[in-house]
């Protein structure tokens, strides 16, 4: 079997006494759309942050296409504080900063939209093309990189067209309505030419029509750009509609895993969500 696109092995993230992610293991294969769901505060965003290098997990490993990109064991104070359920720690320590992980081919969007506020829609996407930069400080300053600059601009423009924001390209990013800001974040992530796209609640704040359109859009870009998609989402219709598989976590722990039909009827999942506003 070929290596999985992404594999998490016993990932645990502990903040002080709070174990936000506990012994999470999962795998995502190429071309899949996999959803990560769970009630508010379950640790979904924290799991994303561990994968993308924003946090270094307290313990556990992450593999991307077979390559070990994150690995850690409890260190310093965490040796005594450690409260995760998995006690068999990896020996290696591998830390990668988010920019390096993005360069490897993982791109993400943010739950609380993080656009470059003073810049236009076009510039927001343009910045994301820069990780393929070959010009150095001198050639860039002296404008000896016109060809590269042109290809960046064309690529950024085609990403804007892919999400249908070409007409708003000169507007300030923050002046866009909510739904379009989310789409802009996706365009920006796509501009880094990822293989694996991580979307943190892309439909948050969208109405049912927009959510529906977003679902079709995600399926569409998967085939168009040859993507694998890892998705956090609270809109259950969207999740059930487009996901190949679903992981459910609660209090940082996996409570269920399977195809949408299995998850829909899973009693544990229903219990976890009971009384929890599903939006």
């Amino acid at each position, binding site marked *: 079997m070929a290596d999985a696109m992404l594999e998490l092995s016993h990932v645990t993230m502990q903040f002080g006494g709070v174990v936000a992610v506990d012994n999470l293991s999962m795998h995502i294969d190429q071309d899949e759309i996999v959803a990560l769901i769970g009630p508010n505060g379950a640790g979904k965003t924290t799991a994303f942050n561990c994968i993308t290098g924003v946090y270094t997990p307290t313990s556990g490993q992450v593999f991307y296409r077979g390559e070990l990109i994150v690995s850690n064991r409890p260190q310093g104070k965490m040796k005594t504080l450690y409260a995760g359920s998995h006690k068999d720690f990896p020996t290696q320590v591998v830390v990668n*900063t988010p920019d390096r992980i993005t360069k490897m081919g993982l791109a993400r969007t943010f739950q609380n939209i*993080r656009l470059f506020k*003073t810049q236009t829609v076009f510039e927001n996407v343009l910045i994301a093309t820069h990780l393929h*930069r070959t010009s150095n400080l001198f050639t860039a300053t002296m404008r000896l990189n016109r060809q590269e600059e042109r290809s960046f*601009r064309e690529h950024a423009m085609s990403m804007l067209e892919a999400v249908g924001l070409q007409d708003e390209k000169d507007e300030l990013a923050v002046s866009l309505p909510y739904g379009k800001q989310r789409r802009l974040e996706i365009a920006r992530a796509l501009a880094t030419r990822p293989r694996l796209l991580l979307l943190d609640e892309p439909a948050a704040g969208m109405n049912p029509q927009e959510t529906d359109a977003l679902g079709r859009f995600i399926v569409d870009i998967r085939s168009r750009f040859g993507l694998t998609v890892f998705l956090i989402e609270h809109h259950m219709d969207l999740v059930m509609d487009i996901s190949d598989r679903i992981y459910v976590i609660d209090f940082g722990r996996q409570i269920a895993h399977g195809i949408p039909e299995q998850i829909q009827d899973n009693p544990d999942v229903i219990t976890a969500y009971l009384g929890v506003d599903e939006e």
Partner: protein
Amino acid sequence: MKVFKIILAALLVILALVITASALTTRGTLPTLLERMDPENLAAQDAAMQKAKDRVTTALAENNPERAQRSLDRYINGFSAQLTLSGRVGYDLFFFRNGPSMLALALFLVVAAAGLIAHALDRSGRVRKLVLPAILITVLYVGVYIVENIAGANSMLMTVLKKGAIYALLAVSMNLLNGFTGLFSLGQAGFMLIGAYTYAIFSIETQSRAQVYQYYAGGIIQFQLPALVSIALAGLAAALFAFLIGWPVLRLKSDYLAIATLGFAEIIRAIFQYDGLGPLTNGSNLLRKFTVFDTALFPFAVAGVCIALIALLIHSTYGRSFKAIRDDEVAAEAMGINLYAHKQMAFVISSFFAGVGGALLAMYQTTVQAAAFTSAMTYEILLIVVIGGMGSISGSVIASFLFVAASEWWLRFLDNETMLGSFRVPLLRSGFRMVVFSVVIMAVVLFYRKGIMGDRELSLGRFRRRLSHRRKGGAQDG
């Protein structure tokens, strides 16, 4: 219309050629002209004219009008030859005296002609974008040159222009870091000090070193480098210190840079006055007798080139990365931007230009003393950056000139005790100027938070669009 522009351009070029030819040849032709003005020559001519005049008298007495006419013509010819000669000497002397000015004028005419031709032949509008700034820059430099010749190099106006240009560079370099990259640094005075000292140390005249370093046996350096080389070294020295500070500090997530740079500026000021370094820094004594500039064109040229480089950098892919970091570090990092590398880059480059600015300031002041580079100097420049607008190069430049003009010139009266009759005007005394400044910055921060320019730039395109009330979308180039 097109033909008219080209004819006008041709006329301008011809005029420029005439001016250039005159300016370049007068030195050679003047001696021969003056030779012809030698007393013997003139006396011979005077004698000939006297003779011609006598002949007219004789001819009149002999009642011979034709001969009288011929003699009179000869008399007038001699007279106008002398007039022409003195006229040519006057003309040549004018060009001899104002040669450089006239060459500048000719250069300006040629640039204007080139602009006209480009304007006439340009269809795409691309040339227009390049030509207009070129003309403006030429106008600026020729203007400075001519003003300097008219107002005198030591006039208040020139003082303001010189210091303003240097402060513009210092403010833009600080803006690169604080305004464009979002890193708050308070070390400007420290980097300026390093730049000023490096420049001074390497460019003191060799024969004056014994005198300057009189307490340190002439110092350890016994050579003098050319001004431009010393300026480059000044920038490099400041950049090196920035690299060493940034190396540990910029890796930290939280922003300790302000504290680290402030501490650095204070420490470096003390270190440079330390007696043990005397052979290099002259301890707490002045450094002097180094190369200075005698025309405002020098600081204008150096600062202009540096500011242009910073502007080019800011509008390059690297500049866009800096702005992304300023807007959102987490998102920037997620877009593949290496935070440490880019912060370090911005910090080192900013400090390089602060060092160059420090060197220019040393040249302007003609002496350097470490004690003068206090944190008040940093705040002064920070004030300019804030007034001009964080993230606006043109704002920093405009604010620099306004600030220097106000502090050196317009607000000077605030520091002078003034009597109106027997009434002593309250508040006016030494130091009150700084009080007014503080009030100004508070007012700016409270009511005018974005400064003069916000984060926009002065742009010809925008200006023209506004003039013609024509709004066209699709300008994607910064």
